[in-house]
């Protein structure tokens, strides 16, 4: 309930929505950074250490309060920042540039390479971070590992499933689609049953979502071999996903409004949007923004490309990293580890809706591990627990991912305006991404 009230927004509060729209888009992250050991301020016994921590994750304030209450020697001062994509990273990069960065910060998995390229993160291996490895889900731990060094402590991820309005589906005699073919059929049926209703929107301005769909289809956009990056955004798998949505768009059976925007929230409330392929943390978005639809939603596994298979993907996911310039790295590391593994802390974060825990066995016995009244009494996190085990964990990110997202956003938006298609947007983004990497002076190859 606390999650619901915390996230509730009135439909009229555009100001609030615009400011916080993407607060939860990737509700899991973290960062860490510090100077070289040589410039560290030594801590005398009994001295109180102050740490600054930048984060936007809901529930993190309560976890920090708990830490401060139980750790009188290390005081963490939480400073709330906008979610990464809405300016949080811009603020961090500017702070790093001016040498005024906080000790710790929230960094999403896909951003870790960008921050490394800016020389913004502290190598935590030097401070014994490797011993924490067993406490986390392995693939999430690997998101912060480059070479033999650990640069981030994982916090949460976003295994994906299908949220849908079970009441409306039942009314119209539609089964939750198990495959993407069925999804396309359901899209037509829903729009035929009610001309105002759509199966979902294609959020042209949110390519992170599209990326997750390509991830599920088996695409591997990026890889690294020695110091040469490989870029394969326009692989057949991605083009298949783009063509799929091109088809639905041309049939006008999906909406094309932006997600996490007022119109979209309204559509969630009124049933104009009847389903959402999203990450586990989407539960808090729906229950927080459409509280009056309690009991009408349910969760099914993500639609599959091959009938009977069971492949999911990850959307969002973030870590706690120590930023370059941190004065007390060992203490910062200690806090980052506590924040993301201590059962009390994890539970507070879960209640806030931060996503799927990165700590091993974080789900079992947590507040997620029980039936939910909002989702009609379904123990819906079982679906995500299963999805979490079905993610291709070899996915890698490049240091210029934000630019890639922008190319895709711009291309998708142009397609909506009648210039090109989603497929051509993907092909264009491939070329532009190669250019981005070359611009940074990095080596790039295309093709496998």
């Amino acid at each position, binding site marked *: 309930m606390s999650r619901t009230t915390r996230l509730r927004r009135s*439909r*009229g509060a*555009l*100001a609030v929505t*615009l400011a916080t*729209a*993407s607060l939860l888009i990737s509700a899991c992250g973290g960062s860490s950074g510090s100077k070289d050991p040589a410039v560290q301020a030594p801590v005398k016994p009994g001295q109180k250490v102050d740490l600054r921590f930048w984060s936007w994750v809901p529930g993190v304030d309560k976890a920090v309060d708990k830490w401060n209450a139980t750790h009188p020697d290390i005081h963490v001062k939480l400073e709330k920042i906008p979610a990464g994509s809405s*300016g949080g*990273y*811009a603020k961090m*990069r*500017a702070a790093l*540039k001016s040498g005024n960065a906080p000790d710790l910060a929230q960094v999403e998995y896909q951003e870790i*390479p*960008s921050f*490394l*390229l*800016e*020389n913004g993160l502290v190598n935590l291996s030097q401070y014994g971070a490797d011993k924490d490895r067993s406490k986390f889900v392995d693939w999430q731990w690997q998101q912060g590992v*480059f*070479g033999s060094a650990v640069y981030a402590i994982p916090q949460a991820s976003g295994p994906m499933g299908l949220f849908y309005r079970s009441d409306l589906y039942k009314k119209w005699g539609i089964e939750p689609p198990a495959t993407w073919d069925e999804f396309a059929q359901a899209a037509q049926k829903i729009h035929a049953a009610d001309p105002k209703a759509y199966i979902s929107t294609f959020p*042209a*301005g949110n390519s992170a979502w599209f990326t997750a769909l390509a991830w599920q289809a088996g695409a591997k956009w990026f890889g*690294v071999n*020695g*110091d*040469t*990056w490989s870029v394969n955004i326009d692989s057949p798998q991605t083009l298949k996903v783009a063509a799929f949505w091109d088809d639905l768009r041309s049939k006008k059976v999906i909406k*094309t*409004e*932006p997600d*996490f*925007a*007022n*119109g979209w929230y*309204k*559509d969630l409330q009124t049933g*104009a949007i009847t389903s959402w392929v999203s990450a586990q943390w989407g539960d808090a978005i729906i229950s927080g923004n459409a509280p009056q639809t309690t009991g009408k939603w349910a969760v099914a596994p993500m639609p599959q490309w091959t009938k009977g298979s069971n492949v999911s993907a990850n959307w969002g996911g973030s870590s706690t990293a120590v930023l370059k310039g941190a004065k007390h790295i060992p203490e910062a590391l200690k806090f980052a580890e506590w924040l993301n593994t201590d059962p009390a802390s994890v539970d507070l974060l879960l209640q806030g809706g931060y996503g799927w825990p990165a700590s091993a066995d974080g789900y079992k016995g947590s507040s997620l591990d029980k039936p939910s009244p909002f989702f009609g009494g379904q123990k819906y996190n079982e679906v995500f627990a299963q999805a979490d085990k079905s993610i291709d964990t070899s996915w890698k990110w490049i*240091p*210029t991912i*934000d*630019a890639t997202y*922008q190319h895709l*956003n*711009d291309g998708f*938006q*142009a397609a*909506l*305006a*009648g210039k090109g298609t989603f497929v051509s947007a993907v092909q264009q983004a491939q070329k532009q991404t190669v250019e*981005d990497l070359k*611009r*940074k*002076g*990095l*080596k790039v190859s295309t093709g496998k």
Partner: protein
Amino acid sequence: MATRAPRRRRNLAPFAFVAPFLLLFLLAFALPIGYAVHQSVMDVEYTGALGLGGSHTVFVALDNYSDALSDHAFLRSIGRVLLFAAVQVPVMVALSAGLALLLDSASARGVRFFRAAFFLPYGVPGVIASILWGFLYVPGVSPLVDGMRHLGVSVDLLGGNTVLWSIANIVTWEFAGYNVLVLVAQLRTIPAELYEAARIDGASAWATVRYVKLPLLRPALILTTVFTIIGTLQLFAEPLVLKPVSSSIDSAYTPNLSAYNEAFTNDNYHLAAAEAVLLALAAFVLSFGFLRLINKRGGDA
């Protein structure tokens, strides 16, 4: 020797008076511009796939400028603000002048109230204004769009062909009142004898406007036009705030937005600096070009 010392003292005096200005000018103007220009001719090179091998800044001459000028999105953004300016500047100046003349007309009632009402939007920060108008543009939420649909008019105020003019509407709403105030202040300085003389000559209200008020309003009109040209090129907050609710605003919708994204999203500070310098040059050329044009046409005004 005896005569040289006093002369030097005399020569130094003007500098002493100008020094505070020069200092401020250097600190607040020349230095940042110089820094931006310097940044725009440098670039960073990284070693290793993740830059873990270190990075160093190198001199690249005009590479960033050629990159910026060969970027279609950036060029389109410049074209877009020029189109915007071509419409916005005349509309803004005509509207402001019209409102100012109405306020100034002898028969206007409630002048103080209307002056305050026109000026009020200027007190609202651009970001808040954009949020406010954004609310009125989003279909399904906006009483405006819904009301028009009930009347049978279906408009998409955030669509590809309309959103630029939706932004123009916000900008006009925000700044027209400010320009009105500047123009009204100029109108107040016109001596009453001129009106009296015009009346005695039998001039109609329209003739008074045409032959007395407008010519004397010229300096203020030029000023507001230059302000509007510069403000238009700097278009930033409105598209940035509307971006999340419109699918038609891309990351390089205006040159300023493009520079912002290059700097803070893509970490290309040097390319962003080049784009910013290009934008400053465009604003310089256009506003001084306008002044040259005006002065050539009627130097005595």
